[in-house]
Protein backbone atom coordinates (compact mmCIF):
# COMPACT_ATOMS: atom_id res chain seq x y z
CA UNK A 1 0.00 0.00 0.00
CA UNK A 2 1.19 3.52 -0.70
CA UNK A 3 2.64 6.00 1.76
CA UNK A 4 1.30 9.55 2.23
CA UNK A 5 3.88 10.94 -0.21
CA UNK A 6 2.99 8.35 -2.86
CA UNK A 7 -0.74 8.98 -2.42
CA UNK A 8 -0.49 12.76 -2.75
CA UNK A 9 1.83 12.65 -5.77
CA UNK A 10 -0.25 9.98 -7.45
CA UNK A 11 -3.47 11.95 -6.98
CA UNK A 12 -1.88 15.16 -8.24
CA UNK A 13 -0.65 13.31 -11.31
CA UNK A 14 -4.18 12.05 -11.93
CA UNK A 15 -3.11 8.43 -11.72
CA UNK A 16 -5.60 5.71 -10.86
CA UNK A 17 -3.04 2.97 -10.44
CA UNK A 18 -0.44 2.79 -7.67
CA UNK A 19 2.77 4.72 -8.27
CA UNK A 20 6.17 3.30 -7.39
CA UNK A 21 9.12 4.98 -5.75
CA UNK A 22 11.51 6.11 -8.50
CA UNK A 23 8.75 6.78 -11.02
CA UNK A 24 8.72 10.23 -12.62
CA UNK A 25 5.36 12.00 -12.62
CA UNK A 26 4.01 15.28 -13.88
CA UNK A 27 1.87 16.72 -11.11
CA UNK A 28 -0.52 19.63 -10.74
CA UNK A 29 0.71 21.89 -7.96
CA UNK A 30 -1.56 23.71 -5.50
CA UNK A 31 0.74 26.63 -4.74
CA UNK A 32 4.12 28.01 -5.80
CA UNK A 33 5.98 30.22 -3.31
CA UNK A 34 8.93 32.49 -4.06
CA UNK A 35 10.79 35.01 -1.90
CA UNK A 36 12.88 38.10 -2.62
CA UNK A 37 16.01 36.05 -3.43
CA UNK A 38 14.43 33.37 -5.61
CA UNK A 39 11.46 35.33 -6.98
CA UNK A 40 13.18 37.67 -9.40
CA UNK A 41 15.06 34.89 -11.25
CA UNK A 42 11.74 32.98 -11.41
CA UNK A 43 9.93 35.85 -13.12
CA UNK A 44 12.91 36.43 -15.43
CA UNK A 45 12.85 32.80 -16.53
CA UNK A 46 9.06 32.95 -16.89
CA UNK A 47 9.42 35.85 -19.31
CA UNK A 48 11.99 33.87 -21.28
CA UNK A 49 9.43 31.10 -21.72
CA UNK A 50 6.95 33.24 -23.65
CA UNK A 51 4.14 30.70 -23.73
CA UNK A 52 0.81 31.75 -25.17
CA UNK A 53 -1.17 30.57 -22.17
CA UNK A 54 -1.84 33.02 -19.33
CA UNK A 55 0.27 32.84 -16.22
CA UNK A 56 -1.17 30.65 -13.45
CA UNK A 57 -0.91 33.63 -11.15
CA UNK A 58 -3.59 32.35 -8.77
CA UNK A 59 -1.09 29.66 -7.69
CA UNK A 60 1.69 32.13 -6.97
CA UNK A 61 2.58 33.43 -3.51
CA UNK A 62 5.26 36.12 -3.37
CA UNK A 63 6.82 36.92 0.00
CA UNK A 64 9.44 39.55 0.78
CA UNK A 65 11.34 38.07 3.72
CA UNK A 66 15.03 37.30 3.23
CA UNK A 67 16.79 40.64 2.83
CA UNK A 68 14.06 42.81 4.32
CA UNK A 69 14.07 45.53 5.39
CA UNK A 70 16.62 45.78 2.58
CA UNK A 71 20.21 45.36 3.71
CA UNK A 72 21.89 47.36 0.94
CA UNK A 73 21.26 48.93 -2.45
CA UNK A 74 21.52 45.63 -4.34
CA UNK A 75 18.94 43.92 -2.14
CA UNK A 76 16.71 46.99 -2.36
CA UNK A 77 16.89 46.79 -6.16
CA UNK A 78 16.06 43.10 -5.98
CA UNK A 79 13.06 43.67 -3.69
CA UNK A 80 11.89 46.47 -5.96
CA UNK A 81 12.17 44.24 -9.02
CA UNK A 82 10.09 41.58 -7.27
CA UNK A 83 7.50 44.16 -6.21
CA UNK A 84 7.28 45.42 -9.79
CA UNK A 85 6.84 41.91 -11.20
CA UNK A 86 4.11 41.14 -8.68
CA UNK A 87 2.32 44.34 -9.59
CA UNK A 88 2.76 43.97 -13.34
CA UNK A 89 1.36 40.43 -13.34
CA UNK A 90 -1.33 41.20 -10.77
CA UNK A 91 -0.20 38.65 -8.18
CA UNK A 92 -2.86 38.89 -5.47
CA UNK A 93 -0.90 36.77 -2.95
CA UNK A 94 1.83 39.32 -2.38
CA UNK A 95 3.26 39.93 1.10
CA UNK A 96 5.06 43.17 1.84
CA UNK A 97 6.90 43.83 5.10
CA UNK A 98 4.84 45.31 7.89
CA UNK A 99 1.56 44.60 6.13
CA UNK A 100 -1.13 42.22 7.36
CA UNK A 101 -0.12 38.55 7.11
CA UNK A 102 3.54 39.34 6.42
CA UNK A 103 6.55 37.57 7.87
CA UNK A 104 8.98 34.76 7.16
CA UNK A 105 7.68 32.87 4.14
CA UNK A 106 6.94 29.48 5.70
CA UNK A 107 5.16 31.00 8.67
CA UNK A 108 3.12 33.11 6.24
CA UNK A 109 2.23 30.07 4.10
CA UNK A 110 0.83 28.38 7.22
CA UNK A 111 -0.83 31.38 8.90
CA UNK A 112 -2.43 32.59 5.69
CA UNK A 113 -4.04 29.24 4.93
CA UNK A 114 -2.07 28.21 1.83
CA UNK A 115 -0.65 25.10 3.50
CA UNK A 116 -3.19 22.34 4.13
CA UNK A 117 -3.40 18.53 4.25
CA UNK A 118 -3.17 16.64 0.97
CA UNK A 119 -1.86 19.62 -0.99
CA UNK A 120 1.19 19.63 -3.23
CA UNK A 121 3.07 22.86 -2.57
CA UNK A 122 6.38 23.87 -4.08
CA UNK A 123 8.48 26.76 -2.91
CA UNK A 124 11.73 28.27 -4.07
CA UNK A 125 13.15 27.93 -0.56
CA UNK A 126 14.50 24.69 0.84
CA UNK A 127 12.45 24.85 4.06
CA UNK A 128 9.21 24.59 2.10
CA UNK A 129 9.08 21.07 3.56
CA UNK A 130 7.72 22.74 6.75
CA UNK A 131 4.09 22.23 5.64
CA UNK A 132 4.54 18.48 5.95
CA UNK A 133 3.56 19.12 9.58
CA UNK A 134 0.07 19.91 8.24
CA UNK A 135 -0.05 16.78 6.11
CA UNK A 136 0.94 18.43 2.83
CA UNK A 137 3.57 17.19 0.39
CA UNK A 138 5.64 20.33 0.18
CA UNK A 139 9.16 20.64 -1.08
CA UNK A 140 11.86 23.08 -2.05
CA UNK A 141 12.54 23.79 -5.72
CA UNK A 142 14.60 26.24 -7.76
CA UNK A 143 13.64 29.44 -9.52
CA UNK A 144 13.51 27.85 -12.99
CA UNK A 145 11.08 25.24 -11.69
CA UNK A 146 8.95 27.94 -10.08
CA UNK A 147 8.84 29.65 -13.48
CA UNK A 148 7.87 26.44 -15.26
CA UNK A 149 5.10 25.75 -12.76
CA UNK A 150 3.92 29.35 -13.00
CA UNK A 151 3.58 28.86 -16.75
CA UNK A 152 2.03 25.42 -16.78
CA UNK A 153 0.63 24.76 -13.28
CA UNK A 154 2.66 21.56 -13.26
CA UNK A 155 6.07 20.18 -12.46
CA UNK A 156 7.94 16.88 -12.70
CA UNK A 157 8.55 14.85 -9.55
CA UNK A 158 10.43 11.68 -8.91
CA UNK A 159 8.36 9.66 -6.44
CA UNK A 160 10.54 9.29 -3.33
CA UNK A 161 10.85 6.16 -1.24
CA UNK A 162 9.50 6.77 2.26
CA UNK A 163 11.19 6.31 5.62
CA UNK A 164 9.01 5.95 8.69
CA UNK A 165 10.07 7.47 12.01
CA UNK A 166 8.22 6.33 15.12
CA UNK A 167 8.69 8.29 18.33
CA UNK A 168 7.09 7.12 21.54
CA UNK A 169 7.31 8.34 25.11
CA UNK A 170 6.85 11.52 27.07
CA UNK A 171 9.32 14.33 26.46
CA UNK A 172 11.56 15.60 29.25
CA UNK A 173 11.21 19.22 30.37
CA UNK A 174 12.83 21.65 27.91
CA UNK A 175 12.92 19.05 25.15
CA UNK A 176 11.18 20.29 22.01
CA UNK A 177 10.57 19.39 18.40
CA UNK A 178 14.00 20.81 17.64
CA UNK A 179 15.69 18.21 19.83
CA UNK A 180 13.73 15.41 18.17
CA UNK A 181 14.81 16.40 14.68
CA UNK A 182 18.41 17.17 15.70
CA UNK A 183 18.54 13.77 17.41
CA UNK A 184 17.27 12.06 14.26
CA UNK A 185 19.72 13.95 12.00
CA UNK A 186 22.52 13.12 14.43
CA UNK A 187 21.52 9.48 14.09
CA UNK A 188 20.95 9.13 10.32
CA UNK A 189 23.26 11.94 9.13
CA UNK A 190 22.76 14.86 6.75
CA UNK A 191 22.37 12.50 3.80
CA UNK A 192 20.36 9.91 5.75
CA UNK A 193 17.16 10.75 3.90
CA UNK A 194 18.64 11.79 0.57
CA UNK A 195 15.99 11.74 -2.21
CA UNK A 196 13.48 10.31 0.30
CA UNK A 197 10.31 11.33 2.06
CA UNK A 198 10.02 11.07 5.83
CA UNK A 199 6.82 10.27 7.73
CA UNK A 200 6.52 10.73 11.49
CA UNK A 201 4.37 8.70 13.86
CA UNK A 202 4.04 7.71 17.52
CA UNK A 203 2.64 9.03 20.78
CA UNK A 204 5.32 11.73 21.09
CA UNK A 205 4.32 13.25 17.76
CA UNK A 206 0.61 12.93 18.51
CA UNK A 207 0.95 14.72 21.87
CA UNK A 208 3.20 17.41 20.47
CA UNK A 209 1.97 20.93 19.69
CA UNK A 210 1.78 21.89 16.04
CA UNK A 211 4.60 24.40 16.38
CA UNK A 212 7.04 21.67 17.44
CA UNK A 213 5.83 19.48 14.60
CA UNK A 214 6.53 22.29 12.15
CA UNK A 215 10.11 22.47 13.49
CA UNK A 216 10.51 18.75 12.75
CA UNK A 217 9.14 18.95 9.21
CA UNK A 218 11.09 22.17 8.61
CA UNK A 219 14.42 20.45 9.20
CA UNK A 220 13.61 17.28 7.21
CA UNK A 221 15.67 18.85 4.42
CA UNK A 222 18.73 18.94 6.69
CA UNK A 223 18.77 15.14 6.44
CA UNK A 224 18.41 15.47 2.67
CA UNK A 225 14.69 14.63 2.64
CA UNK A 226 12.31 15.79 -0.06
CA UNK A 227 9.43 16.01 2.41
CA UNK A 228 8.79 15.44 6.12
CA UNK A 229 5.16 14.52 6.55
CA UNK A 230 3.09 14.14 9.73
CA UNK A 231 -0.43 12.69 9.42
CA UNK A 232 -2.81 15.57 10.13
CA UNK A 233 -5.05 15.46 13.20
CA UNK A 234 -7.47 17.70 15.10
CA UNK A 235 -4.65 20.14 15.97
CA UNK A 236 -4.14 20.80 12.27
CA UNK A 237 -7.86 21.04 11.48
CA UNK A 238 -8.31 23.45 14.41
CA UNK A 239 -5.52 25.70 13.10
CA UNK A 240 -7.07 25.72 9.63
CA UNK A 241 -10.61 26.58 10.74
CA UNK A 242 -11.50 30.00 9.35
CA UNK A 243 -8.01 30.32 7.88
CA UNK A 244 -7.57 27.80 5.07
CA UNK A 245 -8.10 28.88 1.48
CA UNK A 246 -10.44 26.56 -0.38
CA UNK A 247 -11.11 22.90 0.39
CA UNK A 248 -8.64 20.28 1.37
CA UNK A 249 -8.65 16.53 1.91
CA UNK A 250 -6.49 14.86 4.53
CA UNK A 251 -4.43 11.96 3.17
CA UNK A 252 -3.26 9.10 5.35
CA UNK A 253 -1.09 6.03 4.86
CA UNK A 254 -2.43 2.56 5.51
CA UNK A 255 -0.72 1.76 8.80
CA UNK A 256 1.72 -1.10 8.63
CA UNK A 257 0.41 -2.01 5.19
CA UNK A 258 2.17 0.96 3.66
CA UNK A 259 5.48 0.21 2.05
CA UNK A 260 8.20 1.99 3.94
CA UNK A 261 11.74 1.58 2.79
CA UNK A 262 13.01 1.79 6.36
CA UNK A 263 11.53 2.18 9.83
CA UNK A 264 13.32 4.00 12.65
CA UNK A 265 12.06 3.77 16.22
CA UNK A 266 13.05 6.07 19.06
CA UNK A 267 12.23 6.23 22.74
CA UNK A 268 11.66 9.98 22.86
CA UNK A 269 11.67 10.08 26.66
CA UNK A 270 15.44 9.49 26.48
CA UNK A 271 16.08 12.50 24.23
CA UNK A 272 17.71 15.46 26.02
CA UNK A 273 18.17 19.12 25.02
CA UNK A 274 20.47 18.71 22.02
CA UNK A 275 22.93 20.98 20.25
CA UNK A 276 24.38 20.61 16.73
CA UNK A 277 27.97 21.84 16.75
CA UNK A 278 29.65 23.48 13.75
CA UNK A 279 29.73 22.81 10.85
CA UNK A 280 26.97 20.31 10.30
CA UNK A 281 23.46 19.71 11.67
CA UNK A 282 24.44 16.05 12.16
CA UNK A 283 27.19 17.02 14.61
CA UNK A 284 24.91 16.63 17.62
CA UNK A 285 25.69 16.37 21.35
CA UNK A 286 23.63 16.81 24.53
CA UNK A 287 23.68 20.50 25.52
CA UNK A 288 24.89 19.44 28.98
CA UNK A 289 28.16 18.13 27.50
CA UNK A 290 29.17 21.51 26.12
CA UNK A 291 30.96 24.31 27.92
CA UNK A 292 31.29 26.81 25.12
CA UNK A 293 31.28 30.60 25.65
CA UNK A 294 29.04 32.49 23.20
CA UNK A 295 28.92 36.01 21.77
CA UNK A 296 25.42 35.95 20.34
CA UNK A 297 22.13 34.16 21.01
CA UNK A 298 19.56 34.09 18.22
CA UNK A 299 15.88 33.28 18.70
CA UNK A 300 13.85 33.28 15.51
CA UNK A 301 13.57 31.88 11.95
CA UNK A 302 11.09 29.60 10.18
CA UNK A 303 12.41 26.79 12.39
CA UNK A 304 11.78 28.33 15.81
CA UNK A 305 10.21 31.78 15.60
CA UNK A 306 6.66 30.93 16.61
CA UNK A 307 4.76 32.09 19.69
CA UNK A 308 5.39 28.76 21.48
CA UNK A 309 9.14 29.26 20.95
CA UNK A 310 9.02 32.81 22.28
CA UNK A 311 6.97 31.71 25.30
CA UNK A 312 9.47 29.13 26.52
CA UNK A 313 12.36 31.55 26.07
CA UNK A 314 10.47 34.30 27.91
CA UNK A 315 9.71 31.91 30.73
CA UNK A 316 13.45 31.47 31.29
CA UNK A 317 14.36 35.12 30.75
CA UNK A 318 11.62 36.67 32.89
CA UNK A 319 13.03 39.01 35.50
CA UNK A 320 16.65 38.18 34.56
CA UNK A 321 19.40 39.86 32.58
CA UNK A 322 21.21 38.34 29.64
CA UNK A 323 24.95 37.92 30.21
CA UNK A 324 26.97 41.10 29.63
CA UNK A 325 29.12 39.17 27.18
CA UNK A 326 26.17 38.14 24.98
CA UNK A 327 24.02 39.96 22.43
CA UNK A 328 20.62 38.33 22.20
CA UNK A 329 18.45 38.86 19.13
CA UNK A 330 14.75 37.95 19.07
CA UNK A 331 12.95 37.86 15.72
CA UNK A 332 9.30 36.70 15.75
CA UNK A 333 8.57 34.73 12.57
CA UNK A 334 5.62 36.89 11.51
CA UNK A 335 3.71 40.06 12.22
CA UNK A 336 1.02 37.94 13.89
CA UNK A 337 3.54 36.21 16.15
CA UNK A 338 4.96 39.63 17.05
CA UNK A 339 1.47 40.90 17.92
CA UNK A 340 0.75 37.86 20.08
CA UNK A 341 4.07 38.22 21.85
CA UNK A 342 3.28 41.87 22.50
CA UNK A 343 -0.19 41.03 23.87
CA UNK A 344 1.20 38.30 26.11
CA UNK A 345 3.87 40.59 27.52
CA UNK A 346 6.73 38.53 26.05
CA UNK A 347 8.29 41.44 24.18
CA UNK A 348 8.51 43.38 27.44
CA UNK A 349 10.24 40.42 29.08
CA UNK A 350 12.80 40.25 26.23
CA UNK A 351 13.45 43.98 26.36
CA UNK A 352 13.83 43.98 30.13
CA UNK A 353 16.26 41.07 29.86
CA UNK A 354 18.32 43.24 27.44
CA UNK A 355 17.49 41.36 24.23
CA UNK A 356 17.28 43.17 20.91
CA UNK A 357 13.84 42.61 19.39
CA UNK A 358 12.99 43.21 15.76
CA UNK A 359 10.27 42.50 13.19
CA UNK A 360 10.30 39.37 11.02
CA UNK A 361 13.17 38.76 8.57
CA UNK A 362 15.31 35.77 7.54
CA UNK A 363 18.37 38.05 7.54
CA UNK A 364 20.64 36.71 10.25
CA UNK A 365 19.88 33.01 9.71
CA UNK A 366 21.65 33.03 6.36
CA UNK A 367 24.31 35.60 7.23
CA UNK A 368 22.56 38.37 5.37
CA UNK A 369 22.00 41.11 7.92
CA UNK A 370 20.52 41.77 11.38
CA UNK A 371 23.01 39.67 13.31
CA UNK A 372 26.01 38.78 11.11
CA UNK A 373 28.94 37.24 13.00
CA UNK A 374 32.54 38.48 13.00
CA UNK A 375 35.55 36.15 12.78
CA UNK A 376 35.96 33.95 15.84
CA UNK A 377 32.47 34.74 17.13
CA UNK A 378 30.10 32.04 18.31
CA UNK A 379 26.32 32.05 18.16
CA UNK A 380 23.82 29.71 19.80
CA UNK A 381 20.89 29.80 17.44
CA UNK A 382 17.40 28.38 16.99
CA UNK A 383 17.93 28.34 13.21
CA UNK A 384 18.47 25.33 10.97
CA UNK A 385 22.00 25.42 9.53
CA UNK A 386 25.46 25.75 11.04
CA UNK A 387 27.51 25.43 7.85
CA UNK A 388 30.86 27.19 7.43
CA UNK A 389 30.20 30.94 7.39
CA UNK A 390 26.44 30.45 7.46
CA UNK A 391 25.79 33.45 9.72
CA UNK A 392 28.78 35.53 8.72
CA UNK A 393 32.58 35.26 8.72
CA UNK A 394 34.00 31.90 7.62
CA UNK A 395 35.72 31.63 10.99
CA UNK A 396 32.54 32.23 12.98
CA UNK A 397 30.58 29.35 14.50
CA UNK A 398 26.90 28.51 14.80
CA UNK A 399 25.51 26.05 17.35
CA UNK A 400 21.94 24.93 16.67
CA UNK A 401 19.55 24.42 19.58
CA UNK A 402 15.98 24.83 20.78
CA UNK A 403 14.64 28.17 22.14
CA UNK A 404 15.00 27.10 25.79
CA UNK A 405 18.68 26.21 25.33
CA UNK A 406 19.26 29.51 23.50
CA UNK A 407 17.59 31.55 26.27
CA UNK A 408 19.38 29.69 29.08
CA UNK A 409 22.72 30.04 27.26
CA UNK A 410 22.13 33.77 26.75
CA UNK A 411 21.73 34.16 30.50
CA UNK A 412 24.84 32.13 31.31
CA UNK A 413 27.08 33.42 28.52
CA UNK A 414 27.91 29.87 27.53
CA UNK A 415 26.00 26.91 26.15
CA UNK A 416 24.00 25.23 28.86
CA UNK A 417 21.16 22.74 29.29
CA UNK A 418 18.26 24.76 30.79
CA UNK A 419 17.59 21.92 33.23
CA UNK A 420 20.98 22.60 34.84
CA UNK A 421 20.20 26.28 35.11
CA UNK A 422 17.08 25.37 37.04
CA UNK A 423 18.99 23.08 39.42
CA UNK A 424 21.42 25.84 40.34
CA UNK A 425 18.87 28.47 41.15
Amino acid at each position, binding site marked *: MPTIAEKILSEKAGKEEKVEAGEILECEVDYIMVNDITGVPAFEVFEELKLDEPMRKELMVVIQDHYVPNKDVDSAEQAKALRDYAQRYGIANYYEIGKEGSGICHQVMIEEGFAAPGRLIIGAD*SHTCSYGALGAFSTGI*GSTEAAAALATGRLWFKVPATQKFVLDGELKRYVMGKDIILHIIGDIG*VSGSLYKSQEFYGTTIRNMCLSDRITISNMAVEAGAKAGIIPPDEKVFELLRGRVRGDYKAVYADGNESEYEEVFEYNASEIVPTVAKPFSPENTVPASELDVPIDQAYLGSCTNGRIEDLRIAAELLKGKKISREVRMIVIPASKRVFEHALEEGLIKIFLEADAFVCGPTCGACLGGHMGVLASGERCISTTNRNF*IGRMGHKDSEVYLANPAVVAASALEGRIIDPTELELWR
Partner: protein
Amino acid sequence: MRIWKFGHNVDTDQIIPAEYLTTGNAKKLATHAFAKVRPEFSEEVKEGDVVMAGENFGCGSSREHAPRALLGAGISCVIARSFARIFFRNSINIGLHLIEADVFDRVEEGDEIEISFEVGMIRNNTKKEEYKFKPLPEFMQKLLDSGGLIPYIKKQKWELNK
Protein backbone atom coordinates in the same frame (compact mmCIF):
# COMPACT_ATOMS: atom_id res chain seq x y z
CA MET B 1 39.43 19.40 -18.07
CA ARG B 2 40.96 20.06 -14.68
CA ILE B 3 39.52 18.58 -11.50
CA TRP B 4 38.63 20.84 -8.61
CA LYS B 5 38.22 18.45 -5.71
CA PHE B 6 35.97 19.14 -2.72
CA GLY B 7 34.89 17.00 0.23
CA HIS B 8 31.61 15.55 1.44
CA ASN B 9 28.41 17.50 2.20
CA VAL B 10 29.51 20.62 0.31
CA ASP B 11 26.59 22.97 1.00
CA THR B 12 25.19 25.70 -1.21
CA ASP B 13 26.38 28.33 1.29
CA GLN B 14 29.92 27.22 0.39
CA ILE B 15 29.19 27.22 -3.34
CA ILE B 16 27.72 30.71 -3.25
CA PRO B 17 27.51 32.52 0.12
CA ALA B 18 24.16 34.15 0.86
CA GLU B 19 25.51 37.70 0.93
CA TYR B 20 25.97 37.56 -2.85
CA LEU B 21 22.39 36.50 -3.58
CA THR B 22 21.32 39.91 -4.79
CA THR B 23 21.63 38.88 -8.42
CA GLY B 24 20.66 35.84 -10.44
CA ASN B 25 23.27 36.56 -13.12
CA ALA B 26 25.51 33.51 -13.60
CA LYS B 27 28.65 35.46 -14.56
CA LYS B 28 28.34 37.82 -11.58
CA LEU B 29 27.62 34.95 -9.21
CA ALA B 30 30.65 33.08 -10.58
CA THR B 31 32.99 35.79 -9.27
CA HIS B 32 31.98 34.73 -5.73
CA ALA B 33 31.83 30.95 -6.23
CA PHE B 34 33.38 29.16 -3.23
CA ALA B 35 34.44 32.62 -1.94
CA LYS B 36 34.74 31.52 1.68
CA VAL B 37 36.24 28.06 1.31
CA ARG B 38 38.31 28.28 -1.92
CA PRO B 39 38.93 31.99 -2.53
CA GLU B 40 41.28 31.21 -5.46
CA PHE B 41 38.60 29.25 -7.33
CA SER B 42 36.88 32.11 -9.14
CA GLU B 43 40.21 33.51 -10.35
CA GLU B 44 41.83 30.29 -11.47
CA VAL B 45 38.93 28.20 -12.80
CA LYS B 46 38.99 27.63 -16.55
CA GLU B 47 36.21 26.99 -19.04
CA GLY B 48 35.43 23.28 -19.07
CA ASP B 49 36.88 22.45 -15.62
CA VAL B 50 35.13 19.85 -13.50
CA VAL B 51 34.03 19.98 -9.86
CA MET B 52 34.48 16.68 -8.07
CA ALA B 53 33.06 15.87 -4.63
CA GLY B 54 31.96 13.14 -2.26
CA GLU B 55 28.52 12.60 -0.82
CA ASN B 56 25.56 14.97 -0.75
CA PHE B 57 27.02 17.73 -2.93
CA GLY B 58 24.90 20.88 -2.92
CA CYS B 59 23.05 20.27 0.34
CA GLY B 60 21.26 23.07 2.14
CA SER B 61 19.51 25.99 0.52
CA SER B 62 17.39 25.70 -2.64
CA ARG B 63 19.24 28.62 -4.24
CA GLU B 64 19.51 27.98 -7.96
CA HIS B 65 22.26 30.57 -7.73
CA ALA B 66 24.60 27.69 -6.76
CA PRO B 67 24.48 25.76 -10.06
CA ARG B 68 24.20 29.08 -11.89
CA ALA B 69 27.48 30.22 -10.27
CA LEU B 70 29.17 27.00 -11.42
CA LEU B 71 27.80 27.35 -14.96
CA GLY B 72 28.91 30.98 -14.95
CA ALA B 73 32.40 29.92 -13.88
CA GLY B 74 32.60 27.64 -16.90
CA ILE B 75 32.26 24.35 -14.99
CA SER B 76 31.29 21.71 -17.54
CA CYS B 77 30.24 19.00 -15.14
CA VAL B 78 29.99 18.12 -11.44
CA ILE B 79 30.94 14.58 -10.48
CA ALA B 80 29.91 13.40 -7.01
CA ARG B 81 29.13 10.23 -5.13
CA SER B 82 25.67 11.68 -4.48
CA PHE B 83 23.87 15.01 -4.81
CA ALA B 84 21.40 16.84 -2.59
CA ARG B 85 18.07 16.64 -4.36
CA ILE B 86 17.26 20.31 -4.92
CA PHE B 87 20.76 20.98 -6.28
CA PHE B 88 20.38 17.93 -8.52
CA ARG B 89 17.08 19.18 -9.95
CA ASN B 90 18.27 22.76 -10.27
CA SER B 91 21.38 21.70 -12.17
CA ILE B 92 19.51 19.56 -14.66
CA ASN B 93 16.80 22.19 -15.04
CA ILE B 94 19.33 24.85 -15.98
CA GLY B 95 21.49 22.54 -18.08
CA LEU B 96 24.49 21.85 -15.80
CA HIS B 97 25.78 18.32 -16.36
CA LEU B 98 26.00 16.02 -13.35
CA ILE B 99 27.54 12.58 -12.98
CA GLU B 100 26.76 10.39 -10.02
CA ALA B 101 29.79 8.13 -9.72
CA ASP B 102 31.81 6.64 -6.89
CA VAL B 103 35.26 7.79 -8.00
CA PHE B 104 35.96 10.14 -5.10
CA ASP B 105 38.89 8.07 -3.80
CA ARG B 106 40.51 7.66 -7.22
CA VAL B 107 40.54 11.20 -8.55
CA GLU B 108 42.74 13.94 -7.16
CA GLU B 109 42.82 17.70 -7.25
CA GLY B 110 44.38 18.89 -10.50
CA ASP B 111 43.87 15.62 -12.42
CA GLU B 112 43.12 16.14 -16.09
CA ILE B 113 40.08 14.20 -17.28
CA GLU B 114 37.87 13.73 -20.31
CA ILE B 115 34.23 12.71 -20.19
CA SER B 116 32.26 10.80 -22.76
CA PHE B 117 28.58 11.16 -21.89
CA GLU B 118 27.52 8.91 -24.77
CA VAL B 119 29.61 5.99 -23.57
CA GLY B 120 29.33 6.79 -19.86
CA MET B 121 33.08 6.95 -19.35
CA ILE B 122 35.45 9.24 -17.48
CA ARG B 123 39.06 9.03 -18.70
CA ASN B 124 41.65 10.22 -16.17
CA ASN B 125 44.59 11.34 -18.32
CA THR B 126 46.77 12.08 -15.29
CA LYS B 127 46.37 8.63 -13.75
CA LYS B 128 45.82 6.76 -17.03
CA GLU B 129 42.62 5.25 -15.69
CA GLU B 130 39.05 4.95 -16.89
CA TYR B 131 35.88 4.91 -14.83
CA LYS B 132 32.43 3.94 -16.00
CA PHE B 133 29.33 5.77 -14.87
CA LYS B 134 25.64 5.13 -15.17
CA PRO B 135 23.82 7.60 -17.38
CA LEU B 136 21.02 9.70 -15.89
CA PRO B 137 17.46 8.40 -16.04
CA GLU B 138 16.04 8.92 -19.53
CA PHE B 139 13.71 11.80 -18.64
CA MET B 140 16.48 13.81 -16.97
CA GLN B 141 18.86 13.14 -19.84
CA LYS B 142 16.20 14.47 -22.19
CA LEU B 143 15.93 17.64 -20.10
CA LEU B 144 19.70 18.09 -20.18
CA ASP B 145 19.93 17.39 -23.90
CA SER B 146 17.32 20.09 -24.49
CA GLY B 147 19.50 22.51 -22.51
CA GLY B 148 17.30 22.49 -19.40
CA LEU B 149 13.68 22.68 -18.34
CA ILE B 150 12.75 25.90 -20.13
CA PRO B 151 14.00 24.87 -23.60
CA TYR B 152 12.44 21.47 -22.93
CA ILE B 153 9.03 22.98 -22.22
CA LYS B 154 9.29 25.23 -25.25
CA LYS B 155 10.15 22.25 -27.41
CA GLN B 156 7.53 19.93 -26.05
CA LYS B 157 4.77 22.49 -25.68
CA TRP B 158 4.17 20.52 -22.56
CA GLU B 159 1.03 22.41 -21.66
CA LEU B 160 -0.64 21.64 -25.00
CA ASN B 161 -0.05 17.91 -24.65
CA LYS B 162 -2.12 17.67 -21.49
